[in-house]
């Protein structure tokens, strides 16, 4: 683009048309034909091998028994287990004799309430014989079970058949080896669901759980009888048989249909199957798991994305002396931060455990902090002395620590007491606040350590700047090499300790002294180079390190991470959200930073030209350009996380995947189908919402 423009501009000056790009004419000699043949042959070999390794076989696809299994699964998937129907079982019995008595046997009439007729040909047979059972007058297109009932009444299932549309069936079955002199029975059991989704009915409850029992007791207590009478009633009879004697004893007609239903003595058919309820429960868990992972991942990825953006980091070069002193400052800063955080933590812990007190402390301190911060910022038009600014800034820093700890305690104590004093349905809000207080308290130590490291590193760099500006060149060079040597030794020591911990090496020679010496030498060399060039490409180093870390993390699938987190925090959605969150950080940081890299550099240049600092340039030049793509990427990532969280349960990471895997393992395809349906609905919805939102933000 720039090229064509320049060419045009030149043309304007020279008055000549820009030269046409040359068009090549490819030759089609025998050489290219040979190449094509070779390519085809190579393709043939490659795909032949691919077929071999993936065991592609049309035979298995067309195999009838396999097709039958497939159809069974597909049918199940098409019929997800969502509703629980009350069923009425009807037995249709026919007398039968095994073996045939000497004088033959003619069966009596068919017994049963369903109205179906039944015949077996022959009417009696020897054990193990094949006989034909045929019936008619049953419900069309339903499954019926054929049983053989010996005198001990334990049913032996012979077959399950499906009736034809007119309700008849015929099936050859093999008789069991149960010879007996008594008359035995061939039974056809047909099961019929009651009610339909559009026309539900109420049937007497077969099973009443404890909760319902309590509810019924309460109900009876309040409305029908007094507690004394209730105590004398046999509980079972009341609850299990609404038409039984106990119910009559409560007074005929006093219980209306509605009351029966309310008491759980009558249930609706169909009602939601427990599988449907569990699925709903788990899919909600899934969506929130994805939400948490995305939120946490986004919050961490945003600051990281800036240090992983080449265009921002490339120009960050710092004199080697400043780099060295800053690195030396980091461990000191961490130490100071941790100590300060612990001290203030102890201070706050010494206060009596009262949410009110903590809240008040936080508020008062916040007000003070704002005042102090105002004093510490140089304001145009209100000249304040340097010492005053530094003093108020330091004071504000200390107070921020105290206020933060006290806010954390406020959340912990307040949340816990809220959770204990509200109805159990709302207690989760209190627990949420309390957990966040806990997280804040933990984070505060880390934050204090990082801030301490940052401040001391900054002071170190500042010191380097002052030395570099004032001391004679030779001295600066000596300082540079020295400080870089110490810095290198420190970094290497850090690595050495990590390796010592990882591989359980106790020998201090390998993990302390050797790394420190090597580090010092490398540091000194970098310092030497920095002494000549004056500047060290600190920005680029950070860029390469962070990119490497992100790419490594990103290449590990969340499923694999979840396995590690399950070992750490146990089975459940927390492990899943940690795994997804970590992956989100790496993936988003990379996507975000690429977005930062692709921004228009012009405005940055313009803002830099106004005298803005680097931070101001980022805030005014970079941020406005990336807000929209960041939102869009975040939505996209939530979309991905929802999809991932549906299967993260496969490895124990919580969410709906657990149910899905369990049901597939139990060959319970109809139940699994309900979970797949839920996943499809949620993913499609998320997809739609996220694409709509992304449209608005790009």
């Amino acid at each position: 683009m720039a090229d064509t423009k320049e060419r045009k501009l030149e043309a304007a000056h020279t008055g000549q048309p820009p030269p046409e790009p040359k068009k090549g004419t490819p030759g089609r000699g025998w050489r290219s034909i040979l190449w094509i043949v070779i390519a085809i042959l190579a393709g043939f070999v490659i795909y032949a091998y691919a077929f071999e390794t993936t065991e592609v076989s049309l035979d298995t696809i067309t195999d009838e028994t396999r097709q039958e299994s497939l159809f069974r699964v597909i049918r199940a998937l098409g019929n997800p287990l969502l509703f629980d129907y009350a069923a009425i079982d009807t037995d249709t019995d026919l007398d039968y004799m095994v073996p045939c008595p000497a004088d033959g046997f003619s069966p009596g009439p068919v017994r049963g309430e369903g109205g179906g007729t039944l015949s077996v040909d022959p009417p009696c047979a020897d054990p193990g014989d094949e006989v034909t059972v045929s019936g008619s007058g049953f419900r069309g297109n339903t499954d019926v079970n054929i049983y053989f009932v010996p005198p001990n009444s334990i049913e032996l299932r012979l077959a399950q058949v499906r009736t034809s549309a007119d309700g008849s069936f015929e099936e050859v079955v093999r008789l069991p080896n149960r010879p007996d002199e008594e008359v035995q029975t061939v039974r056809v059991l047909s099961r019929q669901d009651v009610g339909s989704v559009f026309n539900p009915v109420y049937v007497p409850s077969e099973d009443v759980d404890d909760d319902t029992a309590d509810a019924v007791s309460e109900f009876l207590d309040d409305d029908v009888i007094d507690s004394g009478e209730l105590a004398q009633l046999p509980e079972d009879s009341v609850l299990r048989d609404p038409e039984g004697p106990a119910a009559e004893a409560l007074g005929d007609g006093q219980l209306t249909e509605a009351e029966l239903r309310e008491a759980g003595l009558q249930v609706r058919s169909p009602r939601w199957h427990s599988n449907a309820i569990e699925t709903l429960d788990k899919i909600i868990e899934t969506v929130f798991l994805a939400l948490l992972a995305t939120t946490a991942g986004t919050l961490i990825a945003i600051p990281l994305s800036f240090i992983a953006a080449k265009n921002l980091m490339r120009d960050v070069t710092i004199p080697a002396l400043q780099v060295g002193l800053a690195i030396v400052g980091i461990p000191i800063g961490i130490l100071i931060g941790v100590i300060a955080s612990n001290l203030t933590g102890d201070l706050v812990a010494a206060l009596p455990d009262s949410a009110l007190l903590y809240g008040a402390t936080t508020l008062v301190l916040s007000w003070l902090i704002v005042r102090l911060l105002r004093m510490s910022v140089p304001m145009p038009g209100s000249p304040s002395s340097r010492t005053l600014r530094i003093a108020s800034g330091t004071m504000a820093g200390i107070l921020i620590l105290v206020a933060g700890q006290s806010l954390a305690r406020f959340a912990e104590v307040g949340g816990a007491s809220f959770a204990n004093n509200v109805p159990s349905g709302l207690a989760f809000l209190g627990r949420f606040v309390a957990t966040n207080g806990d997280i804040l308290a933990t984070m505060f130590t880390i934050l204090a350590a990082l801030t301490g490291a940052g401040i001391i590193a900054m002071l170190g760099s500042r010191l380097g700047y002052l030395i570099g500006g004032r001391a004679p060149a030779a001295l600066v060079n000596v300082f540079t090499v020295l400080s870089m040597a110490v810095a290198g030794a420190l970094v290497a020591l850090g690595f050495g300790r990590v390796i010592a911990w990882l591989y359980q090496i106790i020998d201090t020679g390998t993990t302390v002294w050797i790394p420190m010496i090597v580090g010092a030498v490398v540091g000194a060399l970098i310092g030497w180079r920095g002494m000549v060039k004056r500047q060290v490409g600190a920005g680029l180093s950070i860029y390469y390190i962070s990119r490497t870390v992100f790419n490594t993390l990103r290449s590990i699938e969340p499923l694999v991470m979840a396995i590690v987190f399950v070992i750490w925090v146990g089975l459940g959605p927390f492990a899943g959200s940690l795994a997804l969150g970590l992956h989100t950080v790496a993936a988003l940081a990379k996507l975000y930073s690429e977005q930062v890299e692709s921004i228009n550099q012009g405005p940055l240049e313009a803002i830099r030209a106004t005298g803005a600092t680097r931070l101001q340039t980022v805030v005014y030049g970079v941020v406005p350009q990336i807000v929209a793509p960041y939102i869009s990427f975040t939505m996209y990532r939530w979309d991905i996380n929802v999809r991932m969280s549906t299967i993260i349960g496969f490895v124990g990471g919580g969410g709906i995947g657990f149910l899905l895997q369990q049901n597939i393992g139990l060959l319970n395809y109809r139940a699994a189908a309900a979970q797949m349906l839920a996943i499809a609905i949620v993913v499609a919805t998320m997809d739609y919402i996220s694409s709509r939102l992304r449209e608005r933000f790009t």
Partner: protein
Amino acid sequence: MLRVEHLTKVYDDGTVALNDVSFEVPDGEFLAIIGLSGSGKSTLLRCINRLIDPTEGQILWNDEDITAATHEDMRRIRRRIGMVFQHFNLVSRSKVITNVLAGRLGYTSPVLAIVNRFSKADREMAKRQLERVGLETKANNRAEELSGGQQQRVGIARAMMQEPEMILADEPVASLDPVLAHSIMQYLEKINKEDQMTVLCSLHFLDLVHRYGQRVIALNEGKVVFEGLPSEIDDAMFKDIYGQEAERVG
């Protein structure tokens, strides 16, 4: 007074963008810089406010050595040098008023700027500058909604927010059509005349140089090939600057 002495810039890939460039600009002058694309005009302007670090040579402004200034000195120096760009370089998604206020960043405390706070005086000033370029009604539009000419006027307002003593204009009208080009150039001229501001302006078209430039320097392959009055550029000189095949079109 701006003095550029033996300025040389060699890029990392070995390109020599500026080769021993020396010239002087008295305060309040409108200096036009001409030359082909790639002759070093942009590099020269960017060396003056150190958006690009020169390889050798010195730039002295009011007897202060810009080339030797530290990071912190540069913040102070840069805020007195306004810059206007060929592609306007506005943050297209930000409001016009925010873009104008950005010109004030060199004066604002970095901490306050993070939370998007500017003093009341700065806001008033931004409104005045927008009025001056005739865009007060567009203050709350996004910069990308404005036409090219309007965007460049916002760019000028942003530069003026710096209360600069010098304006560097890097081909400010190269992306605009001729009518708009004149209106933008007239703004620069007005600033130069009314505020006694030094203007260094690189230009493509000779007619604009004749019309607005008080003095001209011409660059060819990083070297100064001409320094003098616009009227002194005759056909022979033109061919020296633009090459033997060039024909005058403007």
